[in-house]
């Protein structure tokens, strides 16, 4: 079987991630996190390499990777914006905030803007429930979202 050069590279980088973690107890989730950090998503080719290294079937690794909301099948946009849609944020108007953000970015939840600038996702609680409604932009937390904050976020992801 001849591997595509791209696949060879993915395999090599995946193997490097695995080598730092395979001695952990229960290494699969840490490895999947590591792979996602390395590539921005979990490539199909990586699953095969992981399965081999951990002595699991490909189906098992696939089953785990697809169970969790965090692991991406495709790369995200340059930015990832998560809007909290859970109850405490609902009580402070997260629905209306989401509608405004969707309109401003021209995308819905689980979508990436055509220029690849941003991926929009719902999240169910960020632990910022006393500063609702809240959001997370690339790991940066934002509370008490209002029109001004939305404008700033939109400007930031378009930059």
């Amino acid at each position, binding site marked *: 079987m001849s591997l595509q050069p791209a696949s060879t590279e993915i395999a090599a980088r995946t193997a490097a991630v695995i080598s730092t973690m395979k001695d952990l107890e*229960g290494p699969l989730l840490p490895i999947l996190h590591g792979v996602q950090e390395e590539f921005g998503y979990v490539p199909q080719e990586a699953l095969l390499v992981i399965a081999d290294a951990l002595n699991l079937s490909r189906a098992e690794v696939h*089953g785990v990777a697809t169970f969790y909301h*965090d692991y991406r099948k495709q790369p995200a946009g340059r930015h990832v914006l998560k809007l909290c849609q859970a109850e405490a944020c609902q*009580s402070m108007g997260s629905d209306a905030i989401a509608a405004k953000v969707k309109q401003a970015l021209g995308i819905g939840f689980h979508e990436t803007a055509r220029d690849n600038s941003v991926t929009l996702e719902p999240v*169910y*609680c960020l632990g*910022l429930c*006393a500063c609702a409604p809240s959001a997370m932009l690339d790991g940066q*937390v934002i509370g008490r979202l209002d029109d001004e904050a939305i404008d700033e976020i939109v400007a930031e992801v378009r930059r």
Partner: protein
Amino acid sequence: MSPTIYMTIYIPGDSGALALGAEKVAKATAKELAERGIAAKIVRNGSRGAYFLEPMVEVETTEGRRAYGPVKAADVKGLFDAGFLTGGQHRLALGDPEDIPFIAKQTRLTFARCGITDPVSLEDYEAHGGLDGLRKAVAMAPLDIVKQVTESGLRGRGGAGFPTGIKWKTVLDTTADRKYIVCNADEGDSATFADRMIMEGDPFVLIEGMTIAGIATGATKGFVYIRSEYPHAVATMNKAVEVARKAGVLGATVLGSPNAFDIEIRVGAGAYVCGEETSLLNSLEGKRGVVRAKPPLPAIQGLFGKPTVINNVISLASVPIIMDKGAVFYKDFGMGRSRGTIPIQIAGNVKHGGLFEIAFGLSLGEIVDEIGGGTRSGRPVKAVQVGGPLGAYFPRELFDTPFDYEEFAKRDGLIGHAGITVFDDTADMLKQARFAMEFCAIESCGKCTPCRIGSTRGMEVIDRLAAGIEPEKSLALVTDLCNTMKFGSLCALGGFTPYPVMSAITHFPEDFKPAPARVAAE
């Protein structure tokens, strides 16, 4: 030569404070210090939990600490001009933080240091009573530690309220070559952030509690499973574990004793159901986060099939003070079978939102109206949801319910992880009931039909109700569905989703009546 005395400025690094601009305040402060040539140390403390005052900046003065807040980056220059470093007057001055009513009214046992100390300074931790509990524990027999925790009356703070000491006893009594302590830091419930605050603001207290649990049960390895939505907590916990290892608090000889104990931090992957203990264990093992049937109990066959203590962050973080001050000291707080203190998290549409630690027994009305100060919007309170997405909605008529496990159960509710979401009179309870079903459908692990399929059916039926289609039949169908879910689900995700749904229907029937306006709008 006398050491240089630095002034100390506290600017929280807690993610709630960061979400309100604390990072910008810290940058602006550092810049002002540099420009004015003032030698001062900035400590990134945790939060004291009064989020309506965050970012709350504190300075150490000769008369004690002085607080200012909520501070915006643009206020920093003015604060320096007003001489805030020595407690100068300013419109944001709050005086002694301990005298702020929201803080003064609390009984801080578990959160004694949170917001006060430098979270990753072990010296600071010890200077404020840290490690006193562990020092006592290493000199005790395991069974005596277990007895003390049992006698304190501590019950699991993760939701189910199971007595912590009894769980530990089972693990102690089960012989095995390896045992584990697993800390459940998945904190997925909306309106809860107590675990996050401890991990970011006083991580050593959790490390100390887990280490005591290890010594008490014969476990040598601990895992903290933190949800991925909490990157700041993950970073602080990793740093604290590193510090604790270097200092010999963790490792082959805990505090120089013959006990070995080490901790590893693990990160979840965005699944609410992984907060359920057996699902969490599967996840740690690298499997799909599917719920396991019990028995076997995790205490007998848990992580990798070994005896495992699995406890919530707050349960474990409450252990050091119980070991230090004694079972009776802790037990003297509270009411009925709910002993000790509980960190109540007041969230949503509320004026004074934040974390309020107090003995069990305060009424819901006192919490919402007096401590919380009513809604942030200024409109009347319509409903409060207690206990997260699986908790019931309470109307004002039930505001006399005391905060106690049994009292809430009597009124078809639960205190869960002690989060409260306040809603004003614009809330639509039908919409809230629908969301409860939707959330269950999104997060179901898929093992039971009533949970996986029932929740989706529930959404559809509530949609029909909203559209005014056969309202009586639809209502009966939802009730029926809730019964099936309640009795036919393996875990509380499917089993408790009926709480928010049925409480909304029972207490707010007007929102479920066919409204001509609603039909017209759709």
